[in-house]
């Protein structure tokens, strides 16, 4: 990190800007192991899409050692190019302190903190205390992560109180609730940077000072090198060019519809992220395919077809590219030159 603890907030205001892509690790082999080369390729591809930061998300199905290795690779690839934002969401409370400290040690720019599943608060005070303790234990900037998967949704008031702490510098808003988002902007928007990953909500929140997405999967899923749709949409919003922004909003609608069709059930009913579907989607767009360790749901034949067909329909890929990029496509097809898009 390039700032001191007391300058964290100012650094965040200047650097937590624009679209932050989200990267999840790529695994290969049998048994599955972290594929470092593929991870680096994926990070480089994301950077080439023009993102201003990368959210390094690796909170599931990996060992402590793998978590560390992935974060190290991520921070290395981001260094000097884009902001590195490390997700800290371990299984244990002790892990939360260790991982935050590790992120600082390897030179990450900022962390995104979510308490472990074993943390069950009995009051807002408990939520405040644990976040304060972690922030106090390090110098690195900490962003909050209000989302139901924590087991609770941190209220805008708690966010505003935590925003008073020197090195709490942002919040990645995933409460699936715009009333919460609006209230957070009102109570804390002048103190910390409020990030909104969900692209559907950007037009609403841009007027409240939205300046970053803070880790969105859409950076990799709703655009390609030749078709930077998400970036165009974001730029039009930042320029307050509403009619152009709305054109892009509706142009993204087919992708949005399929995204929610294949993810909505897992988000709302199961409370999990179907990363197999994400990896398949990203794989179709030129990122590395990856097997994901169990337990991770998703990727039925129907889900694959929905994803494949919408990407062809909007013109992101053609039939030949799609065929070559199928995870089980023959190697010859992969090497034949198609799929350069």
């Amino acid at each position, binding site marked *: 990190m390039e700032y001191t603890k007391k300058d964290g907030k100012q650094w965040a205001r200047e650097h937590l800007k624009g679209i932050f892509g989200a990267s999840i690790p790529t695994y290969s082999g049998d048994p599955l192991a972290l594929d470092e080369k593929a991870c680096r390729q994926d990070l480089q591809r994301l950077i080439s899409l023009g993102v201003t930061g990368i959210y390094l998300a690796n909170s599931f199905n990996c060992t402590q050692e793998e978590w560390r290795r992935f974060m190290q690779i991520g921070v290395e690839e981001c260094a000097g190019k884009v902001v590195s934002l490390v997700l800290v969401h371990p299984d244990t409370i002790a892990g939360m302190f260790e991982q935050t400290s590790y992120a600082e040690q390897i030179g990450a720019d900022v962390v995104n903190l979510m308490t472990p599943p074993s943390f069950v608060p009995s009051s807002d005070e408990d939520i405040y205390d644990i976040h304060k303790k972690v922030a106090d234990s390090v110098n690195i900037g900490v962003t909050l992560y209000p989302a139901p998967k924590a087991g609770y949704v941190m209220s805008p008031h708690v966010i505003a109180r935590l925003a008073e702490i020197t090195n709490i510098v942002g919040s990645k808003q995933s409460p699936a609730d*715009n009333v919460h988002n609006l209230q957070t902007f009102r109570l804390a928007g002048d103190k910390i940077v409020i990030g909104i990953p969900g692209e559907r909500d950007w037009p609403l929140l841009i007027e409240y000072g939205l300046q970053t997405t803070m880790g969105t999967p859409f950076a990799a899923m709703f655009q390609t090198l030749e078709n930077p749709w998400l970036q165009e949409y974001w730029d039009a919003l930042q320029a307050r060019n509403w009619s152009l922004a709305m054109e892009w909003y509706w142009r993204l609608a087919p992708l949005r519809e399929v995204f929610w069709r294949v993810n909505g059930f897992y988000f709302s009913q199961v409370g999990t992220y179907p990363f197999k579907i994400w990896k398949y989607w990203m794989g179709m767009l030129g990122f590395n395919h990856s097997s994901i360790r169990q337990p991770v749901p998703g990727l039925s034949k129907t889900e694959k077809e929905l994803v494949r067909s919408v990407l062809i329909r909007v013109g992101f890929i053609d039939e030949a590219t799609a065929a070559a990029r199928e995870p089980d496509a023959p190697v010859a097809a992969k090497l034949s030159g198609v799929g350069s898009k």
Partner: protein
Amino acid sequence: MEYTRKDAKAWARENLKGMVSGCNQVFTHDTLELDETALRHDVNHLVGLEVGGIYFAGHVTLTPAEWRQFVKVGVAATAGRTVTVVDIHPDSMSEFIPQAEYAQSVGADLLNVITPPSFRASCEQDVFDIYKRLSQAVDIGISLFINPKAGYTMSPQMIADLAELDTIVATKNSAYETIHTLETFRLAGHKLVVGVPGAQDWAVFAGHGLQLSMGTPHARMFQTHEHRWAQEYWDFLMMHDWQRAWQIHEERIRPLLDLFWRTFGPYFHQAQVYPLGHYKYWEGLLGMSGGPMRQPMPTLRSQDKHLIRNSLIRSGLITSKQAEEAERRMELVLA
């Protein structure tokens, strides 16, 4: 109606304010005929809640004659005490303009219009033309009902284009798409009154010029004469008192919204139907008539009743004793 065609927009801006509550027909328990007495009771109940208007929504199972009776009795019972809006959504094109003419003839203040299921638009011009034709056929003001159940979703630009017509004065935005409504405010909010029915969206648009919740279920489902929670929430939002609005949202409105979506969400999203029997039971517990609905209608199962009743008691909106009394009253009618 109290205005002329040329004054319609000014009338709407002045008079379409607050929560315009939905009001459905009531049937007798034994023969399932329209129950005029019960309908009058419901109108009085809503007037007592000081709603900004009453929105009469006739269900598809009504015959054309019954629909007319329902509208006539509803408007007459309101007797100018609040604004009356009549929902126009007939089965066939042949009833489209006649229903509008009838609502105007019985003295309704406004129409809320959705094209019949048989209307298929091949392009946006078709949608524009049908609404324009209607607006020329009657003098009464028209609110556009933006809802996917039309078979299409009118675009914000189309709404803005239609808003140029002198008697197109409002919308009921049920597009289930926040940004669609936001864009409607931007493109047409200065030309007509954009109405947002669902309480889940009020806070989002209160900063964008929201003045109307058109045809909302929440004015009658989220409050009683004793506990005016929906009204308090609305008033804080209109005052831009975000702090107190948030507080009542968290304490009172959110639990009721959770119950509402748990009860109705699957029907809206999967069956694309309004389970009016569920609505009737819920509002019956809160002092309205309740009562049965005609088929086809999703069955109100005992577990649905338990969930609704127990959640309403837990929310503090009614007591166990009030719930018992309401159920007894509904059962007594049955006897």
